[in-house]
């Protein structure tokens, strides 16, 4: 991958659900190793945008380029592309009928065709990275929310993705558990992972993001370095949103 080619490029992206236009033409490029935080009020389309990146939502117009490759068509091997993009969900979505180890190895074996031995080794490595190796044989129901989310992150990492998408990864967590997950995300960022993060955690955005993108009503209102967007926003809408968020 060339140094000047974007890891993720969204061109004139539109998405409509029935009569509701959720995305009204989004242009955004994320370079390799960059951490981009998407902020905005609910209904702004930030989650929809994220989900378009790996085509969990199908855009109604526009193009999606992963490493310069257009992944929008039906000829594209979407399953293969998705192995390069890790995704972490708000509600973790761990497989409850499988142990932590099985959660981490099932896709490695079925999709990447790794041997069980290799997959298990990988699982142990990523679990250590998120600090949960001792839970390897537990079922998800025995873990706290924060632990489940860290396992979910490990599950995505086990596939050796080139980039990671986080869809409000901490929004469903009790406040005291948010920190442990943000810590893992920060470590990932510092290790150079390309990340697109939809979040309400402004502190995280300020400290970890390379760029912050503020969205409202389906458009990007403002984007730029965190100090600029969060500290001295240019647009009135951005200012109003930040005021509402911090006025608690």
């Amino acid at each position: 991958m060339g140094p000047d080619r974007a890891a993720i490029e969204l061109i004139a992206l539109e998405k409509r659900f029935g009569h509701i236009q959720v995305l009204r033409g989004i242009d955004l490029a994320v370079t390799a190793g960059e951490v981009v935080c998407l902020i905005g009020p609910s209904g702004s389309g930030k989650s929809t945008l994220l989900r378009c990146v790996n085509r969990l939502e199908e855009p109604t117009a526009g193009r999606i380029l992963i490493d310069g490759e257009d992944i929008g068509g039906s000829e594209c091997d979407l399953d293969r592309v998705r192995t390069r993009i890790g995704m972490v969900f708000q509600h973790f979505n761990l497989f409850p009928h499988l142990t932590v180890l099985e959660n981490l190895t099932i896709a490695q074996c079925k999709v990447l065709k790794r041997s069980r031995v290799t997959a298990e080794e990988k699982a142990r490595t990523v679990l250590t990275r998120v600090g949960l190796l001792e839970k390897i044989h537990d079922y998800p129901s025995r873990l706290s929310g924060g632990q489940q989310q860290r396992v979910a992150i490990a599950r995505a990492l086990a596939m050796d993705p080139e980039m990671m998408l986080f869809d409000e990864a901490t929004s469903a967590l009790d406040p005291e558990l948010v920190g442990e997950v943000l810590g893992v995300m920060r470590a990932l960022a510092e290790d150079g992972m390309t990340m697109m993060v939809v979040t309400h955690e402004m502190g995280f955005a300020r400290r970890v993001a390379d760029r912050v993108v503020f969205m409202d009503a389906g458009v990007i209102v403002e984007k730029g370095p965190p100090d600029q967007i969060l500290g001295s926003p240019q647009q009135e809408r951005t200012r109003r949103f930040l005021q509402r968020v911090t006025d608690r």
Partner: protein
Amino acid sequence: MPSSRQRARLVRFGVYAATLLGLGWLAIATDWARLQANFFDPGIFWDLFPEILTRAARNTLIFTAFGFTGGLAIGLALALMRLSPVAPYRWAAAAYIEVFRGLPALITIVLIGFVLPIALQVRVPGTYGPGSLALAIVTGAYLAETIRAGIEAVPKGQMEAARSLGMTHSQAMTSIIIPQAFRIILPPLTNELVLLLKDTSLLFVLGTTDQTIELAKFGRDAVAETFNGTPLVAVALVYLAITLPLTRAVAWLERRQKRATRDA
């Protein structure tokens, strides 16, 4: 004027008294001697063993096993067709389900056992073949909706997580969705099993051989031979001996299910 609580107590007392009186009347009015002679004759009762178990009950269970396995396969296929994006698959499955849920099981058994061989010149193979197939066809229609509901009850996020890991739709269905769906529908599935077991009593219309005779026919034949009702009581007891543990198992499964979802 008595308070509402006092009234409630009076009503309860009244119900207890009426029940006791009713039972008392039954106990006195019943001709116990005749009842025992006609329905609880020990000689006839014990004569039925071991065949009531080694042949009749065994066959009932075999038909149930084959019918349920076949029904599961058919039901799963139908459920997947109902969920398919291809409209003709959905319609075909819906039609099948409507028809075989709308027909009495007895008619379906006659259709498979008699009409099919004459129409298509083909005989269903195996001693238990025709009966099992007919039961599977009926059970499949009922299970289809249960299985579909189970699949739809699995949270959408599961499929999303599986697909975002790069799994294909069928890999996700096989390893992630369907296993969870079955866990969810275990109680209604077991209910269906009990219903199927009882429906084996309809297989007599296909004609029975000594080999394939099931419990209900066995009982009715014995009643005709002995001019006594005891075989029916015996058969009833054997049915209950099989179905009661199953229904208890369902209740236990449902309790476990509730506990599992509560702790999650």
